């Protein structure tokens, strides 16, 4: 099984080689083989007696990141979708993408996606799942940006990445949290210990984080906005990632965690509410689109919402319908995208306002389109799979098993109406898609290309998918027992022996379906009247504006904030740094009771010492007051000499000497350098700055003094210096202890002190000798 998942990645490595011969043989042929092999490998698992299979491979055991594949009914459904649709799309793309395109890049991204998506639906280890999850986002980013010379393409790529990675990160938060609580990284393990998670005080947070991940990926309202912009990707990609597979990853995740979550009220409320809103909003928005792919994008959003809401219902029937619809949606939506691609390819336009009457030019395509779009609309015909799942959906919406109280009761009442409402628009855009493109008056002159039927190869894939629509429609049991029932079992945790029938008699669901058809037909026929409404409402509620505003604001405000304090002024920086240190340190001193004074072990006051100190204070303050640079430098010297006098007083002769010499040299250097620099000016600073400076500098000085006093009053241990005095002569061979410390006990310090001087010398030499370039930054 590992090989099956890795196969796409492995081939991706060889694509650069293969694409060298692309002029002889389209790279797509090589690529098509991979999903076919995977499909064949996995289809062998299908059967009535199917049991979940687990495979473990060691990867990073110390981090609990092992590749554990868990193939149950749900995974199997997805795996077959991914490889099956993948094969069809890859084959379709051979005719869609011309050899002059950057096929190598395209197929690398394509295979990366396929492998990652297989990984997502097979991984039982949450961290491995997350890894694959992010990779699907990345490959989607790259595929949307495939024609990155177009601005819209770049925009769409960034948008999809930001939103899906945002969700991915929040998913990561949820996964880490859950794995911490249950002490396992396995999804099945978490489900087994669900009480630990469900009863935790942070469970609402975990749920929200998890659902954020699922909703962003599966384009649920209000995170759906990336999906329409993702239509900038080549159409095969839209068919594959953005309708059949990747966008269902969120659905998959919710389904996967359903055994744990579906008993929870919050899960029911959130998921079914967001799902049904998405259904309505998506189908409503689809009606006002003019781009064929735009219609399909919003239609996908709406269908995803429908599946999501059914998972939220969580009843046996709803789960079955959800799983069934995942498959059905993939068949009809995949074929519709391919139809849109064919229309685009053959006419050069996807704008439904320019299209029309193409039936005579593309008869086969039109046939496919009518079947697929009618299935999508849920038209009650016994050979369309879309009708069955729609019917089940209505049925499920009527039979919510919730304790009717508060918001839940409201939901229970509203759900059937909302379901019908959303489905009416679904009917409208489905009709619009077909009739707007293929019927009506043809205006061939306005189209960039003269339309004609697509090459046969391009038709193969949609034909197979539409055959799927019909076969499932005619013989639902064919796939029900060996396949769908197992998937539903995995989601719900109970056995299914659901029989799908076309004719139930006049039941409420059938009435709902008929209502949809009647109202839908009216809306289609009176479309012109409704145009102003369609145009008006979304403008008010546009999530896109919110996204654009946020992204724009993030950049603009971060610019403002950053330039607000990072203004390059050293004074500002130092002030901020010192203030931070000052406040925090004082706070810590106060809280820990750090300030202590102990006057016992002090040296006697000595008059010379005090007078030197006074002199130094006067000199130090003098450096501030004086406006004469020579004076300033000289009185800095006074401070230095004062310090060396203190060294003498306090019995540090070596220091005194060194300080004396160094101070002299430093003063000389100062004079040398500042002879060439401008004179000191009066300090032109505002009163408030001056006060601030005074507060900060006095505060800092006081802080240091207080710490010094406290430190001196807390001499709790004997210094190691005793050892130096004791051993200096006998072991160090010298009587001047300071010298012995420097050259022997702590010789390494001294060695590197010399190194520092050496480096300084080289740096100074370089600065003086190298003439800088004034222009270049």
């Amino acid at each position, binding site marked *: 099984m590992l090989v099956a998942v890795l196969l796409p990645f492995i081939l991706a490595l060889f694509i650069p080689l293969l694409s060298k011969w692309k002029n002889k043989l389209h790279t797509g042929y090589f690529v098509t083989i991979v999903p076919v092999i995977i499909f064949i490998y996995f289809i062998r698992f299908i059967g009535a007696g199917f049991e979940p299979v687990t495979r473990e491979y060691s990867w990073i055991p110390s981090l609990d990141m092992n590749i554990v594949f868990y193939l149950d009914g749900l995974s199997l459904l997805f795996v077959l979708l991914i490889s099956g649709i993948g094969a069809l799309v890859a084959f379709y793309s051979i005719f869609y993408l011309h050899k002059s395109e950057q096929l190598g890049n395209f197929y690398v991204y394509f295979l990366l996606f396929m492998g990652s998506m297989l990984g997502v639906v097979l991984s039982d280890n949450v961290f491995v799942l997350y890894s694959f999850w992010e990779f699907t986002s990345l490959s989607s980013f790259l595929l949307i940006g495939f024609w990155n010379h177009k601005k819209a393409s770049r925009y769409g790529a960034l948008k999809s990445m930001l939103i899906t990675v945002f969700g991915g990160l929040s998913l990561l938060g949820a996964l880490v949290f859950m794995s911490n609580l249950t002490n396992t990284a396995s999804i099945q393990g978490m489900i087994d210990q669900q009480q630990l998670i469900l009863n935790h005080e942070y469970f609402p947070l975990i749920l929200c984080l998890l659902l954020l991940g699922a909703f962003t990926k599966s384009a649920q309202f209000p995170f759906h906005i990336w999906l329409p912009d993702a239509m900038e990707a080549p159409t095969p990609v839209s068919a594959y990632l953005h309708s059949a597979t990747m966008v269902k990853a969120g659905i998959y995740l919710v389904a996967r965690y359903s055994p744990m979550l579906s008993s929870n009220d919050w899960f029911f409320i959130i998921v079914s509410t967001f799902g049904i809103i998405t259904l309505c909003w998506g189908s409503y928005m689809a009606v006002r689109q003019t781009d064929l792919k735009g219609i399909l994008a919003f239609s996908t959003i709406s269908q995803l919402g429908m599946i999501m809401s059914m998972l939220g219902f969580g009843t046996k029937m709803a789960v079955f319908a959800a799983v069934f619809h995942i498959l059905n949606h993939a068949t009809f939506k995949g074929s519709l995208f391919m139809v849109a691609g064919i229309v685009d390819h053959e006419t050069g336009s996807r704008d439904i306002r320019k299209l029309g009457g193409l039936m005579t030019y593309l008869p086969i395509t039109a046939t496919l389109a009518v079947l697929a779009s009618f299935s999508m609309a849920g038209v009650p015909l016994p050979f369309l799979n879309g009708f069955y799942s729609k019917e089940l959906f209505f049925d499920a919406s009527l039979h919510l098993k919730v304790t009717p109280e508060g918001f839940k009761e409201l939901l229970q009442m509203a759900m059937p109406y909302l379901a019908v409402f959303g489905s009416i628009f679904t009917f409208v855009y489905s009709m619009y898609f077909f009739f707007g493109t293929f019927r009506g008056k043809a205006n061939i002159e306005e189209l960039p290309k003269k339309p004609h039927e697509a090459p046969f190869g391009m038709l193969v894939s949609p034909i197979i998918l539409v055959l799927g629509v019909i076969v499932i429609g005619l013989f639902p049991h064919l796939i029900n027992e060996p396949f769908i029932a197992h998937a539903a079992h995995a989601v719900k945790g109970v056995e299914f022996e659901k029989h799908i029938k076309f004719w139930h008699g006049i039941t409420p669901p059938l009435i709902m379906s008929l209502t949809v058809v009647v109202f839908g037909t009216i809306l289609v026929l009176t479309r012109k009247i409704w145009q102003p409404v369609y145009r008006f409402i979304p403008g008010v509620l546009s999530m896109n504006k919110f996204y654009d505003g946020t992204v724009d604001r993030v950049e603009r405000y971060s*610019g403002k904030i950053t330039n607000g304090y990072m203004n390059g002024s050293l004074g500002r*920086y130092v002030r901020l740094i010192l203030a931070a240190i000052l406040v925090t340190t004082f706070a*810590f001193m106060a809280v820990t009771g750090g300030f202590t004074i102990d006057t016992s072990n002090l040296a006697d006051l000595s008059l010379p010492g005090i007078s030197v100190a006074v002199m130094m204070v006067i000199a130090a303050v003098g450096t501030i007051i004086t406006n004469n640079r020579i004076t300033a430098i000289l009185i800095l010297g006074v401070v230095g000499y004062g310090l060396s006098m203190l060294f003498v007083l306090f019995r540090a002769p070596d220091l005194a000497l060194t300080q004396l010499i160094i101070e002299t040299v430093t003063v000389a250097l100062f004079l040398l350098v500042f002879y060439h620099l401008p004179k000191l000016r009066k300090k032109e600073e505002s009163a408030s700055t001056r006060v601030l400076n005074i507060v900060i500098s006095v505060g800092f000085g006081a802080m240091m003094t207080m710490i010094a006093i406290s430190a001196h009053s807390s001499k709790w241990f004997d210094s190691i210096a005793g050892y130096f005095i004791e051993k200096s002569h006998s072991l160090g061979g010298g009587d001047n202890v300071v010298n012995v410390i420097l050259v022997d006990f702590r010789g390494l310090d001294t060695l590197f002190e010399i190194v520092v001087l050496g480096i300084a010398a080289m740096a100074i030499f370089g600065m003086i000798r190298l003439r800088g370039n004034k222009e270049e930054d």
Partner: protein
Amino acid sequence: MSNLAVLPIILPLLAGILVAFIHKKKTMVRITSQIIAVVNLIVIGWIFIQVRQNGSLVLETGDWAAPYGIIIVGDLLAMTLVLTTNIVAVASVFFAPKSLSEQQETYYFYSFFFMLIAGVSGAFLTGDMFNLFVFFEVLLMASYGLIVLGNGKAQLRESLKYVLINLFSSMLFVTTIAFLYSIVGTVNMAQIAERVKEVEQQGILTTIGILFFFVFATKAAVFPLYYWLPRPYISPNPVVSALFGALLTKVGIYSILRTFTLIFNQEVEMTHTLFIYLAAFTMLFGVIGALSTNNVKLVIAYNIIPAVGFMLMGIGIFTEVSISGTIYYLVHDMIIKGVLFLLIGAIVYAAGTSDLRKMGGLIHHYPVLGWLFFLATLVLAGIPPFSGFIGKLQLLRGGLAEEEIMIVIVALISSLLILFSMIRIFIRGFWGEERELEHPERKSKAARMVWPAAGLLALSILLGVGAEWFYPSIESIAEYLMDPEIYIDSVLKE
């Protein structure tokens, strides 16, 4: 055997002196430096293996017993960081000739470079507080030498700020050491730790600890002390930026990690809680900075800061898991920052500008550069299974285990924004219409510039995908740090 511990310091020191003597001969100094850097790396790799197998190397310099002499402690943490340092160094030394002007090369670049390595390695290895100060000065002085090298107008301006802030923090550092000495009567880190523990870090000790934190945090660029960092880091040559970005802030973080696991570990409730808050602000403000600019170099420089936040987060949470996250992140960040600065150097060279608004469509001319940059972006943003993810995962695990929800959420948001700030460069700089290159003559040189970065990047990816080979060691380091007695006993043997 324990004498080996000093080699990572002495070898580059000698190398630095040697190349100073032959600095005039460009080719010779270049090749000599490259050979020495590689040899040095091999030697250190070997020492690293020794340490991993046989435990810490503790060297009493001058044969003066601890705590009286200066102790070099080659434990696994120090050796891991030294090894990583030298890996980045080797990549830089091969990048340098392609990026430096002849003048810069002959005016002691290689000497400063080796001295920097010596200083950084010394700071990682030393077991003595004052000696740490000295090594800080060595690496700072070398960095001063590097940052002014070339004497550009903006370069000198930014250098001046850089030197002044570091000078101040050095003075604060040395004073704080004196305060601590007054209380515990020693400068040996193991003995300090022992004595601080004995009095349960009471009284003024926590305040002194906070001062130490601020000293190191200034170097590490923690909020609110990082203001000095971004612009000075981008003003010198890219290879210098790479060295700075990869090594300097990490020394600060290392020092915080060491002192606050070994010494100031008694008042965790207070000190480490402060770290968590500062970490959150560091992440946010850092990444806001990265989003604020269209200067691609500055984007990378700002991205140093949130990484520091991530590492500080682990120290703040202070569990074995989070500390191992910090260490993994530390190693990862040293490498990836090296990669990014080298790549961005090549990008700016190729594009002829560092202004993102003037770039576009570079991928048509520089596909390899573009894809390397894309990969590096993923690594930096912590996309699994690359190295950034491993550290981040452990940090999140640690954070959630302690129910530090706020910092976890901030970390997740910052990850997204980091990705945004970087992918902007890819989208706006590399994608887009194919255009005429402004400097077509630079093509071959720019293409050659990417190889050192590519090598580092490969390692970085290995560090993620092959985490199983590295993580157990890192975990053992975290275990070791959380039990300071081991360190103390290994230094003060009796």
